[in-house]
């Protein structure tokens, strides 16, 4: 590996100052070390943030508040998270492996980079890695790539599972940077590739994710995450769906829906949601709403199947959410 300097800190201010002057945060390292070893990312200064007091999980009113350094495994196993936000727990357990979840942090998970194989092949054109070089996936092996939110410059999916759940549930995040603190919806963290595919998120230089807040709603407990992939576990999603339902008097009162594996960012499905409110929770209604999900899809040569698989996955996720007692 190339040379770099590793610094540690126990102070949020010092961490932010270091990052503002060019250092990269490192948490679990499960994305960063991997990409550094392949020389896809080559930061010369790392700031180890694991000494910061940002790993707590707490309940505030109806909200579950998760520190950015909480480990995926700890969040998934937390009894409050399981009880109040089962969708968060389930989407975490469906991601990566137990060993990785023991190391990987919530903040790092949201900022993990794409799994497009060309992104990691230093000799393949890739606009995300080297802006202006071209995109090898558009005419290449693109079965796993996105059908929604793509541009002529990049078609990679956002790989995070829990991000899909967080976007469905209207979670917000708090960040701190040289200019102070701000909060915004997790959905706004992710950029579409457009003609700047190398810019993936909306954090300002030096900004540190400190916590993620998941508001509780009456729909939260009837919520499921369904991940369709090439094998039963330890694989990224081909298509995934996060669904939360509130059913009253036999009618859907509230619904939250988002999809993974299909978009260049976690894909909230507001049109499908609107279509479902007031309907009976039946397959017919689910199917009619889910049919709206691939609106605007631009399938590639090898990933046309996602246009069909996406609505089916949504229907099944809604059925599963409806079955939750």
């Amino acid at each position, binding site marked *: *590996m*190339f*040379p*770099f*300097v*590793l610094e*540690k800190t126990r102070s949020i201010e010092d961490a932010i100052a270091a990052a503002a002057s060019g250092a990269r945060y*490192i948490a*679990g*390292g*499960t994305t960063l*070390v*991997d990409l550094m*070893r392949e*020389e896809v990312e080559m930061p010369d200064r790392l700031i*180890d943030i*694991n000494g910061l007091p940002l790993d707590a999980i707490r309940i505030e009113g109806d909200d579950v508040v998760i520190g950015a350094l909480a480990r995926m*495994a700890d969040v998934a196993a937390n009894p409050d998270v399981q009880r109040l936000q089962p969708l968060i727990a389930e989407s975490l357990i469906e991601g*990566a*492996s*137990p*060993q*990785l979840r*023991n*190391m990987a942090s919530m903040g790092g998970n949201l900022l993990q980079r794409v*799994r497009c*194989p060309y992104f*990691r*092949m230093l000799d*393949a054109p890739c606009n995300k890695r080297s802006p202006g070089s071209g995109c090898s996936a558009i005419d290449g*092996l693109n*079965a*796993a790539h996105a059908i929604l939110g793509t541009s002529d410059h990049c078609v990679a999916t956002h790989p995070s599972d829990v991000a899909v759940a967080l976007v469905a549930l209207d979670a917000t995040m708090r960040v701190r940077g040289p200019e102070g603190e701000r909060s915004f919806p997790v959905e706004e963290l992710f950029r579409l590739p457009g003609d700047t595919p190398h810019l993936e998120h909306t954090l300002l230089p030096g900004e540190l994710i400190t916590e993620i807040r998941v508001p509780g709603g009456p729909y939260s407990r009837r919520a499921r995450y369904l991940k369709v992939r*090439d*094998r*039963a*576990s*330890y*694989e*990224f999603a081909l298509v995934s769906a996060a669904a939360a339902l509130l059913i009253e008097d036999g009618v859907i009162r509230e619904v939250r829906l988002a999809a993974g594996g299909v978009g260049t960012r976690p894909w909230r499905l507001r049109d499908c949601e609107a279509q479902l409110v007031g309907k009976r929770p039946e397959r017919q209604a689910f199917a009619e709403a889910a049919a709206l999900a691939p609106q605007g899809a631009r399938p590639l040569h090898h990933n046309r199947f996602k246009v069909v698989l996406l609505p089916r996955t949504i229907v099944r996720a809604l059925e599963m959410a409806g079955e939750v007692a």
Partner: protein
Amino acid sequence: MTENPSHLPPSGPFLSRREALQATAAAAALATWPSASEAETSAAPAGAGTSAAAVPAVTLTMTVNGRAHTLTIDPRQSILDVLRETLNLTGTKKGCNQGACGACTVLVDGRRIVSCLTLAAMHDGSRIETIEGLEKDGALRPLQEAFVEHEGLQCGFCTPGQIMSGLGCIAEGHAGSPEEIRFWMSGNICRCGAYPGIVAAVADAAGRM
């Protein structure tokens, strides 16, 4: 050598080229990596294909299988590298070196992790357990016995990682049924497909422990 479920697509001409590249990179890394004593005296070990800029060495303590070590290491070393190359504990295997196969699984402060993606310099004061630390006074642990009884291996390359991960799986309470064991052991890939024996061994040991 590379079992890499996380990179899609799973097969195809360019992944095999990639595998070849990785094999070369791994060989180069092994050839140029400094031994512990070299690292102590020269703070500028050569990284494959990079400038010879100085990398300040890091001194830390680590308890490995109950023995405390004070080590001066290169910050680029993973826990896996430190175990295999600095401490000569080669039981922990380097498979993919990318977090994808589980061959390098060890317990750090009681939790199973992949040691290949973990910078050792970030683990000052940690307690690490590896396959070498399991045997007590010449006796195998129940899970090790169970791997032998149920033939939970063929070539044996993935076995140390499977056993360390199995200990984690049992300790976490995720060994209740074969389905549960399969799901919670999915971070460990076995090229030979010895999974039925592995699942049986974990189930058996979970019952005994």
